[in-house]
């Protein structure tokens, strides 16, 4: 454990200094164990399950597959940093509660981040697009039915309230 690094990351808009981390540590490990952001979860450590999903410079990544040192000087957004107004839940988070999409909850933060990312890029996904977008996030409790319902509820609300860039077209 002799090769260590000290570097800076921006997490949820705040500059964080990581001191003396082993260079082999993943972004997931550094977020969880060094910086106090436990929202991203470690369920497979090989990019199969999506539980550790975060945004890195705006791109959805599995933080278990990103070396923390390689994320130096870049911007990370975790589930803790999603933009809810005045600390409130986001519409996706609220829809997860309303539609019963949460059981054990271990996959939930990763799915919330993934669905935000999808709906920012595609405000009106078809059901297959939605299934494809979350197919990198494994859930063992729900069978995905209520998760899909939650995402569809957000799509409906956003298009109804005119907050989306374009109306739902399909």
């Amino acid at each position: 454990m002799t090769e260590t690094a000290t570097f800076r990351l921006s997490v949820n808009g705040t500059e964080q200094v990581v001191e003396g981390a082993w260079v082999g540590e993943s972004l997931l490990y550094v977020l969880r164990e060094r910086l106090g952001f436990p929202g991203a979860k470690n369920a497979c450590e090989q990019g199969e399950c999506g539980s550790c999903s975060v945004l890195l410079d705006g791109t959805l990544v599995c933080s278990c597959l990103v070396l923390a040192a390689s994320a130096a000087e870049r911007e990370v957004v975790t589930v803790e940093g999603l933009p809810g107004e005045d600390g409130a839940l986001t519409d996706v988070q609220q829809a997860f509660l309303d539609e019963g999409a949460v059981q054990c909850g271990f996959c939930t933060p990763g799915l919330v981040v993934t669905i935000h990312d999808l709906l920012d890029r595609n405000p009106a996904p078809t059901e297959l697009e939605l299934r494809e977008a979350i197919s990198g996030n494994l859930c063992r409790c729900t069978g995905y039915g209520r998760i899909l319902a939650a995402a569809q509820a957000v799509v409906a609300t956003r298009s109804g309230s005119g907050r989306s860039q374009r109306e739902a077209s399909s």
Partner: protein
Amino acid sequence: VTVTTDRKERVRDGIGTSAKRPDGIPKVAGSFAFSSDLQADGMVWGHVLRSPHPHARIRSIDIGPALAMPGVHAVLTADDVPGDKTYGLEHADQPVFANDVVMHVGEAVAAVAADHPDTARRAARAIVVDYEELEPLVDSEAAITAPPIHRDGNVFHEMVIRHGDPSVDGEVVVEGTYEVGMQDQAFMGPESGLAIPDGEGGVDLHMSTQWLHVDRDQVANCLALEHDKVRMTLAGVGGAFGAREDVSMQVHLCLLALHTGRPVKMVFSREESFLGHVHRHPARMRYRHHADRDGRLVKVEARVVLDGGAYASTSRPVLVNACCFAAGPYDVPNALVEGWSVRTNNPSCGAMRGFGAVQVCFAHEAQMDKLAAALDMDPVELRARNALKTGDRLITGQVLRGTAPVGELIRTCSAAPLPAADPEPDPMALPGGAGRTADRARVRRGVGFALGFKNLMYSAGFDDYSTARVRLENGVATVTCAAAEVGQGFVTLAQQIVREILEVDEVVLAPAETASIGSAGSTSASRQTWMSGGAVERAALAVRARLDAGEQEPLEETYEHHHPPTSPLDEDGQGDAHVSYIFAAHRAVVDVDVDLGLVRVVEIATSQDVGRVLNPLQVVGQIEGGIAQGVGLAVMEEIVLDNGVVRNASFTDYLIPTALDMPEVAIAALVEEPEPGAPFGAKGVGETPTISSSAAVAAAIRDATGLALPRIPVRPQDIALA
């Protein structure tokens, strides 16, 4: 899916409403503390060294190189276990650390504590173990008569059910041999925990588990401590499905904490999780069904062999269940069922959602379809003709006293509209997903139907109980209960019950722990709604009675809720062994690429016997989630073994359904016939969806392909190379 309840809402978020989870907000916000999120000052990290061999003698262990590594605080082996060297849920045959022999791949050999998880991992690798490899026994049939591989023998349990006149024959006879592979629970949150020494010889263990009190007892026995010196608190549980019923890292964590004098945290990797917990028993089954020309069942003969792997775990009760439910939810006048659960050098098997009923359901439902074909009868009609009903006698001789709406389940599920075939399907919706189906004209649709049933709660003479305390003070109710919330939503239900009875808005849930309250039993066997729900209900009713009598707050009542006593089965497998039964029907629609052997499950329709719906949203969640695990077992999930060696201990190689694999679930009916004696008339709903969904999918693939498909999971080669 839309679920409505016409009940008038007397109380906000009371019984029958889709009340929201009390842990929902922290779970969506990422702040809910799962066991892997725990931290403590001065904490070090634990790691366990595991056997790479399915069967080997340990000649020597040299921990020197590990101890010499900077940052390593402790390295422990079997010599460091002060109390019982073995533990187990029923039979203590599983070593804390292997001593002279390892019995399966992944068996714990040593444990390390170090200042960084990677240091702990590397130190474990630095331990030198000299193994003399032994021939592994991996064939469950052979194990019955093979020379014993363990001093307790190779047969965990052997039983027979003789019912009616086993010598009679039917006019129409069909037979078959069936196999079910080894499924893993594959919950998302790997095993993890934090042990904190109290400085006085005791230890506090924060752990994701299913049964705190029985964990505590096993840990204390291994540590040679009084049971109250080990205090367990439930840490956030990332799913369970049976895999957390056995002890995994609990003893190792506490030993490391007591040796180092520091808090010790351990988190399994996904590979360790696959290797470090029990799986669903693989099964080999031989069946012969007899019927008369009118399609009435005359006799069922079955022979069931379950591979229990290296250690006992719950291999005995899983076999009892497999045999009790071997004939399915039908009126069967005569039966002969023989069963064995055996020890091998394969990974240990134990509890998984459905607990023995899943394996036999695959076989008895395949047999019913075979029988329908032999009789030239509609398979749904054959089932309806033989459906169990209240008052019928089960093959265990027990008269079914509770609700058994099997006919209603068959009628509603089979009447659900079939999904329309899409003439121009999106490539993503073809078998195998985008780009894999070569020729759309070679995609065939099939439909299959299956029924399943099992028991609720513990059986065969086990004194099953749960304890709950309800305190009312300043208009706020506090519930104390050690029931493990593993995602199923007991926490929601406990609040609903207390709101309903005490008509209060605020219901606080005290932590689930061993120090403050008695056992709640395990979160398994679909039992917490009845057992702990009943304990909470009765404690709340006792508070309510005092309130109504004019007593002043604070008021507190504790209730220990036992279910009606059951009897063990006699030597003919006869007896009133179970309290209550749950039933479901599943109809699967599949599309199969017959050239490539790829299957897309299009839809599962289901009707389920629920007694009464206490929380519509949570019932739907259990049904959809349970069906997902049934679909997984039918078409993709299997621990692949190569002479005892696990070849796919990762989510790259052990596949569970993704959102693209998961079909639409159409709930045709939630049949609400209140169960006499059950709190609020409700039956547990967690296991039912898993029992017959696999069988229905297999039947649908048979319908599409015309193949016999006697084994699940159905693999591409089973279709393409048939």
